[in-house]
C-alpha cells in the first residue's frame, strides 16, 4: 500500500521573484513517470515539503494545459515558506497531491467569467485564467479585476500582456493608493467592482484574495446581481495532511483540504462561514 504522506521529489527549475515577498517556483518531478501521471485541475493545491523544515500547502498557479512542470507562488510567511524562499534552482523539494476539489470547470463552461483577485490571491485564479485562455472557445467573456496594495505587490506582471491580447478578455489592474507613473485604476477591489459594474447575466464570479477583500467583495457582487451559487471563492486555512484526516481545516462538517478549497458562496453560507 502506498504511503499517502510521502511526497514525490521535484526539482526547482526556475524561480521568479514576483514581489519583494512572493516568489514563483517552477517545479519538475524527478521521476518522469510521476510527471506523466500527475494530473490536476485548476484550483487544486499541493503539499510542499522543504526537507528538514516541514510541509505546507500551496495552490498550483499553473494551468494543467501547460504540461511539463507545475508552478506555485509562495509568500514569505511561516517556517516552510521562509525556507522555501531560501532555495535555489536545482534544489529539491517534496510534492504531495494534487489535493482539493479545484474549480468546477465544467460548470463554468459557456459562461462569462469574472475573476476578482487581490495580491497573491491571483495565484489559483491564474491557473484557471490560463486554462480558460487555452480553451478559449469553451468560455464566454473573461474579465479580470486584479488588485494589490501597491504596484510592487502585483503578481504575474509578465503575463498581463498575454491576457489582454486574448480575445474577449479584459484586464483591470488597480492599486490601493495613488502612485506615481501608475496609469491603471486606483482603489480597493470592491470599489473598483462597483465602478466597473460587470454584467451578471450568465456569469460566474471567481474571487480570491485576502479575507478582508473577500468580505467586502461579496456584498458588492450580490448587489451587482450575482447569485450566491455563482460566486466562487477559495478558502485558506491551516492544513497539514491535505487528506481530510488531521482535523485542522474543518469548517462545518467539511474539510477545506478535501472538500475545498473551492466553495461557492452558497455553500459557505450553509455552514455559517463569516465572509
Amino acid at each position, binding site marked *: 500500500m502506498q504511503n499517502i*504522506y510521502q511526497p514525490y521529489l521535484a526539482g526547482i527549475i526556475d524561480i521568479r521573484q514576483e514581489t519583494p515577498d512572493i516568489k514563483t517556483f517552477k517545479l519538475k518531478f524527478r521521476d518522469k513517470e510521476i510527471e506523466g501521471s500527475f494530473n490536476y485541475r485548476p484550483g487544486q493545491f499541493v503539499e510542499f515539503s522543504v526537507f*528538514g523544515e516541514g510541509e505546507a500547502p500551496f495552490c498550483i498557479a499553473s494551468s494543467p494545459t501547460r504540461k511539463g512542470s507545475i508552478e506555485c507562488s509562495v509568500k514569505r510567511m*511561516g517556517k516552510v515558506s521562509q525556507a522555501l524562499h531560501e532555495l535555489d534552482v536545482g534544489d*529539491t523539494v517534496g510534492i504531495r497531491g494534487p489535493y482539493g476539489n479545484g474549480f468546477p470547470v465544467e460548470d463554468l463552461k459557456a459562461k462569462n467569467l469574472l475573476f476578482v483577485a487581490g495580491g497573491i490571491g491571483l495565484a489559483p485564479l491564474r491557473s484557471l485564467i490560463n486554462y480558460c485562455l487555452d480553451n478559449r472557445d469553451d468560455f464566454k467573456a473573461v474579465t479580470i479585476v486584479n488588485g494589490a496594495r501597491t504596484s510592487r505587490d502585483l503578481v504575474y506582471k509578465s503575463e498581463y500582456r498575454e491576457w489582454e491580447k486574448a480575445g474577449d478578455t479584459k484586464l483591470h489592474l488597480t492599486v490601493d493608493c495613488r502612485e506615481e507613473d501608475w496609469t491603471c485604476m486606483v482603489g480597493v477591489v470592491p470599489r473598483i467592482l462597483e465602478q466597473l459594474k460587470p454584467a451578471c447575466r450568465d456569469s460566474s464570479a471567481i474571487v480570491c484574495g485576502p479575507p478582508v477583500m473577500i468580505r467586502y467583495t461579496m456584498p458588492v457582487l450580490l448587489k451587482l446581481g450575482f447569485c450566491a451559487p455563482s460566486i466562487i471563492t477559495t478558502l485558506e486555512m491551516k492544513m497539514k495532511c491535505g487528506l481530510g484526516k488531521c482535523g485542522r481545516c*474543518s469548517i462545518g*462538517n467539511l474539510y477545506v483540504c478535501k472538500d475545498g478549497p473551492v466553495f461557492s458562496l452558497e455553500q459557505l453560507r450553509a455552514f455559517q462561514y463569516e465572509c
Partner: protein
Amino acid sequence: MPSEKFFVKEDLYNKLEELSKEFEIIGPRELPNKGIFYQSLKNTRDLYLGEGFAIEPIKRFFLKPSEWIFDERFRENKNILEGIPLPADKRIIISVRPCETRGLTLLDKVFDSDYKDNFYINNRKRTIIIGLACNKPAKNCFCTSMGGSPIESRGMDVLIFDMDRGLIAEILTDRGRELFASIGEGLNEGQRRLLKEDKEKKKDLVEKKLSPPEGKELDKIFESDYWEDVSRPCIGCGICTYLCPTCHCFDLVDERRKRLRCYDSCSFPDFTLEASGVNPRPTKKERYRQRVFHKFDYFKKNFGENLCVGCGRCIRHCPVKIDIADIVDKVPGLKKE
C-alpha cells in the same frame, strides 16, 4: 466448532504464554498508584482482568502517538526519501473494553476510507483484539447512549465474559477462532443460558445517559454564548483528546531528518494558528465547540455516527471536571421530550 467457549483464567494465562512465542501480547497492567496501562506483557500473568479502565485507550497501538512517516537523507548532493518499513510482527491485544474497540471502528472510517492510511491499516491487520465485557461500568460511562454497550463486540475478534467461575469467550472472527481452537470447551446448556442472562443484565448496567441532539439541531446554537460559558473552566490541555479512543487529529513535523506524525489536539491554540498569525479558532470557546461539534455533529453528518463511544475517559481525567456528556445534554433550547 462452537462460537462460544468456556475456560478458566488459568487456561487463558497458559494459552497466552503459548501464544507469546508467536505474538506480541499486549494487555492492561496495573501499576501501583498510577493506574492501568496497556503494555507489552513480558509475563502474561501481569495481565489485568479486573474492572476499571486503562488510562490510555488502545488507540495508541493503531494510531501511534508518534511515528516516523519517512526518512529524508542528503547524500552526495542529492535528496533521497526512504520509506519506513512497516512492522510485520503479529500482536494480540487482550482484555480490551468494548468501547475502545468501538472507537477503532470509528477510526477505521477515517483512516481506512478514501485516502487509506497504510500505517494505521497495517496496525489493524496485524492485531488480533480480544475484548472483555464490562461487569461494572464506571460512573462516567455512557456507552449505551452512544450506540455501544458493555457487551458491544464490534471490531473484536473475541469477546470474553468474566463469569465468576470462569470465562466465556465469544468467538467473532476466523482469526479468533483459530486462536482459540485449542482452549476450553464449548458451552453446555446451563452456561449458554447464563451467558444470555449475563448479556441481558449487562445491557442495562450503564446508568449515565444522554441524548445527543441531532446534528441539525446543534447547528442552530453554533453561535450561542453557551460555548463560552462551558469552555471557561477548560485549561486547554490535551488530556481529553489524547485519551479519547476516537480523537485522531495529528500533526506532521520534520525532526532529525525524518518526518514525524504525532498526536495533536484541537484544544491547543497552535492547532489552527496560521503562519500569518491568524487563528480561526482563537479562543477556548471556538476550540471547545469544535470538539463537541466534531464529535456530535460533523462526524455524524459525514459518517452517520457520533465520534464518541461514551467511555467517559475525558470526564474521568479532566483536571477541571468538564463533563462533555453533561454539556451536550444541557445544550440550551434543544431539550427533547
